[in-house]
């Protein structure tokens, strides 16, 4: 199986081309700010390295959020449209889980990926490595630092903090003696790991339905639904489709 894996959820950009769980070519950058300009040229380079044409691909695996709204949409739009236009498989993997994949070898470890969501809020979840893959223990969510620390109080086992957790370093360590911040490149998403894991996952049934997992409504939507609790939650019901000829 020939796989393209992409993650642009946050500042790092990671992409990889794999075949049958083997990494053929991968790239990780942390310096670029314009993911929209950079992603496709990087994909082209990786595909050239692997000697693949776009039509050779069997599957696209993408980190589908949470993260920067615009960031996740770059890789997700690329993956969704590529899967649709080539008629190939699409797999979305939580961007937090993607980070936890860096610890797949640490059987039994508890891993806490964190993305800073500003104003003392974060996107986070708790994973346990079981059979060499991260399994969700506490679901991915958008939560305040304080509330998250409370949730972790009852966890006795050591927790590995990765991602943007260093922003909250002092607070984590004061509140949770069993919390260990991981240093170095394990804090960065590795599209190669994402591709290896994504190859084992069930692809989405209808590519048309695939959307990023923002884990958060916009303020406008949240306020509106508060006032209209019975209104449809299906975004498609607020779209009119027609042909203009």
């Amino acid at each position, binding site marked *: 199986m020939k796989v393209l894996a992409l993650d642009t959820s946050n500042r790092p950009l990671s992409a990889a081309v794999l075949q049958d769980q083997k990494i053929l070519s991968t790239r990780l950058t942390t310096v670029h700010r314009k993911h929209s300009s950079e992603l*496709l*040229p990087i994909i082209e380079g990786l595909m050239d390295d692997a000697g693949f044409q776009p039509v050779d691909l069997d599957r696209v695996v993408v980190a589908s959020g949470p993260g920067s709204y615009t960031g996740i*949409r770059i890789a*997700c*739009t690329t993956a969704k449209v590529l899967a649709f*236009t080539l008629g190939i498989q699409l797999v979305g993997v939580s961007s937090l889980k993607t980070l936890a994949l860096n610890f797949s070898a640490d059987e039994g470890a508890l891993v806490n990926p964190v993305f800073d969501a500003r104003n003392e809020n974060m996107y986070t979840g708790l994973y346990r490595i079981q059979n060499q893959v991260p399994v969700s223990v506490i679901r991915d969510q958008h939560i305040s630092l304080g509330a998250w620390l409370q949730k972790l109080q009852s966890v006795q086992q050591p927790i590995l903090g990765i991602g943007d957790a260093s922003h909250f370093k002092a607070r984590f360590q004061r509140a949770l003696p069993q919390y260990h911040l991981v240093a170095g490149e394990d804090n960065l998403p590795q599209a190669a790991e994402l591709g290896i894991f994504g190859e084992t996952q069930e692809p989405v049934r209808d590519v048309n339905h695939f959307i990023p997992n923002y884990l958060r409504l916009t303020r*406008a939507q949240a306020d509106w639904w508060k006032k209209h609790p019975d209104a449809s939650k299906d*975004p498609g019901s607020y*779209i009119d489709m027609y042909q*203009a000829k």
Partner: protein
Amino acid sequence: MKPNLIMSFESSCDETSVAIIQNGDRILSNIVATQIPSHKRFGGVVPEVASRHHIEEITYCMQDALEEAHVTYDDLDAVAVTYGPGLVGALLIGVTAAKTVAWAHHLPLIPVNHLAGHIYAANFVKPIRFPALALVVSGGHTELVKMPKRGQFQIMGETRDDAAGEVYDKVGRVMGITYPAGPDVDHLAHLGHDVFHFPRDMEKAHNYDFSFSGLKSAFINVVHHAHQMHRRLNRADLAASFQDAVVDVLVYKTRKALQNYLVKQLILGGGVAANSSLRARLKSMLERDFPQTEFLKAPKKLCGDNAAMIGGAGYVFYQEHRFAGPDLNADPGLEFDWAPGALQ
């Protein structure tokens, strides 16, 4: 000879659209997924909500566009896309989708300025002849564009503050008309008369720029003042007075531009180009003052944002081989160059 086929994408604001255009002037399909019912809930376009809808709708639009046109990717010659101006997050969905399709199928990618698209909506009615002058009026733009030759677009004047369509929406909000207010205000205006004589910002500046902020403030003041005095104003007269003022300014500046720039055609495009009063007043002004100049209007169905117009404009650039690479980015502040010697 095999016809030229372009698949075009538009996502600059609150419409996701994909079209298949043949030889630049024939619409094989033009699928529009409008988010108006969504943004109506919030009284105007919420950019993040718009971006979310675009990624939800994009492949449905592609699928319908191909099916309606009975076309496959193998039949295509190029992919065209709006890369600006517009909302950056919204633009990025169309740009990313178009780049991906172009790359996946080894097709050239044509970047198109959204306003060139609005102008080329008229080309589906009749071929544009040069030199031409275009008046583009929409929710985000009010611009006079000089077109000396095919593929050349130069700004003669633009709005210094709000776009005309934006003022329609703001005035509509004050009157309790939901976004987008243009069609309802237009309808109401025909039932009333200009009795309020709102200010027209016309004589002050010696250039071709527009300004609607004075009109907007005057309108809001009149309504608020009446409200404080517990007086009810005639809504139809309010709408008529407002619309007369907007159209007066648009017609005045267009006429001034035509006096100094002799053209074969005056082209009208953009969402507000569907306004009946603007269409009628420009027509009578041309007949009276510039009988040699042909009036070419975008068809009402193509006044709003759609991908067909992007494919139409894209065909012009296709013939000139104006292609972009895989690093194409959205440019939310994209503008045509100013006309040489234009009074800015």
